[in-house]
């Protein structure tokens, strides 16, 4: 059974069609690439899955629940985590705090024990801190753990965002251009990380990416969007050959005139 099932998803922004009748699914332990020209609706789709946008029609089933009716925080708590195309870090906070906030929801105590700082609340804070320390180490961020997020180089900030998403123990990870603005070395490292997440942690990934080398080497399956419609779906090799994809990226023959 598929982990995520999207059926007939549509969304328009004041008449402008952003997503039209999109259907596909993602299996467990699968990396699915989402490509398409600028404005094709890739980020919009991820925003729908993570609950930031409410689709006009269609369903998004994850673990037998329709995400299109859930709030973003409920979706995150169900194990769907994401990163953002334009970084959305807690900028004034340390790297450690960013990651800790990624897992804090599992350690929340009730308000009264927080206000009076009872031992159980303190124990939970320590436990969360320990877990964050582990994640920071796994993501190679131990050395910068006490640095302010905004002061770090761009590539490192991207890693922090990924670490924060992983802190939520996701089953499904939505990555919106994780290698944008990175040098080839950094891109390769991110690709390795994502592959490791699938192979060792069993995490499914929906990946928006412009770097075709990353997409072709990493994805089990690729979905191509254009003007809000799904124009192709298949293995990297299939998608590469699909005429619809060529048209979307390069234009019709007639366009060159």
């Amino acid at each position, binding site marked *: 059974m598929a982990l995520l099932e999207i059926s007939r998803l549509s969304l328009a922004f004041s008449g402008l069609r952003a997503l039209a009748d999109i259907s596909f699914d993602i299996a467990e332990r699968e990396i699915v690439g989402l490509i398409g020209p600028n404005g094709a609706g890739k980020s919009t789709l991820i925003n729908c899955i*993570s*609950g*930031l946008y409410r689709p006009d029609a269609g369903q998004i089933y994850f673990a037998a629940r329709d995400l299109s009716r859930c*709030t*973003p*925080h*409920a*979706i*995150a*708590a169900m194990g769907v*985590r*994401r990163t*953002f195309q334009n*970084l*959305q*870090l*807690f*900028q*004034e*906070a*340390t790297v450690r*705090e960013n990651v*800790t*906030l*990624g897992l*804090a*929801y*599992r*350690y*929340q*105590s009730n*308000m009264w024990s*927080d*206000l*009076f*700082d009872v031992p159980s*609340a303190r124990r*939970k*804070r320590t436990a*969360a801190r320990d877990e964050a320390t582990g994640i920071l180490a796994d993501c190679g961020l131990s050395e910068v753990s*006490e*640095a*302010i997020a*905004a*002061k770090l180089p*761009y590539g490192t*900030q991207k890693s922090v965002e990924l670490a*924060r998403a992983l802190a*939520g123990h996701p089953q499904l990870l939505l990555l919106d251009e994780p290698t*944008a*603005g990175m040098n080839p070395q950094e891109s390769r490292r991110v690709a390795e990380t994502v592959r490791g997440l699938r192979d060792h942690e069993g995490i499914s990934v929906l990946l928006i990416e412009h770097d075709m080398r990353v997409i072709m080497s990493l994805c089990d399956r690729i979905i191509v969007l254009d003007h809000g419609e799904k124009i192709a779906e298949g293995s990297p090799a299939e998608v590469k050959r699909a005429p619809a994809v060529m048209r979307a990226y390069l234009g019709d023959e007639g366009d060159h005139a």
Partner: protein
Amino acid sequence: MSLNLRTLCGAVVLLFLAVIPFGLGNYGHYLLATIMIYALVALSFNVLLGIGGQISIGHAAFWAIGAYACALSVIKLGLPFLLGVAFAGIMAALFGALVALPALRVQGHYLAIATLGFALIVQQVLFEWETLTGGRQGLFVPRPSLFGFELTSDFSYYYLLLGVFLLIAWITGNFAHSFTGRSLAALRMSTVAAECCGIARPRHIIIAFAMSAFCTGISGALYGHLLGHLSTETFSLAVSLSFLSMAVIGGLHSRAGALLGGAYLALAPEVLREFKDAQMVIYGVTLVVCVQFLRGLISLLEPVQRAFNSLRRRWARPGHPRFAPGTQDVDARDNPRIKSRDAHDGA
């Protein structure tokens, strides 16, 4: 060796606050009492604005609700004074939770207007509801009494207020360090990111408003008993505005800043009395300077902190991890309001 500047300063300030009434007369005691009362309101802005980033120009309403709830419960229900104060806090918190509902939908200027509207409504209702509040005549409030002992002087009342301030400061400090408080701060820094981390915005915004209103309600309750007489004019729009500016001027990110803000609001009119009409200019300039160039007056102490830290580092034994030089911890405190990521805008 674990000498900490905060602990040290806290102890000194506390000692000072405990001793100072002995050197002052009646009016001095009254002023000290108002400092504590205002500082409680400033604490409430620490929670709401400092942590949560939510604005309110309606806090005079929570102050009024607290003042009337306490006075009426003591007069009409015969509640003991301290229970009345707690009741006032709870009433204000309920109204705070109510005001949080529009805050879930609107932000910034719109939220400011919504809270302003709330304050005007509360003031008007209290004014018109003569059978309860005495309307134009106002309401006489008995002296506070503790376990049968009447606190007849502002001197003794001040110590009670100091105790309440310390208690509430302890609670708001706990809140700031708790996951609830930190999640609220996360919502301020990036709402979408926080929600996508599993943090429920409605719960945290409601808690922020309720807590903030609670502190202000307690303050209002205590103020009513200090004045001995309540009238709705006391809770005007101007009061809401001066609460907000006091909190910003003192510093929104520390309890010491709240105390400083309270002292500013209570003492500035006394100090600046000679300037007559020019007072308003001075208030305005102070506010602008605090907003534009400082993070509240409390941030003027940051150089002292830096100097202390560098001294401590020099004294520290080399290799002692606790005092390892160059820890980013210092940066965090020196500059927690980093806004720009302009270096990467192009990406």
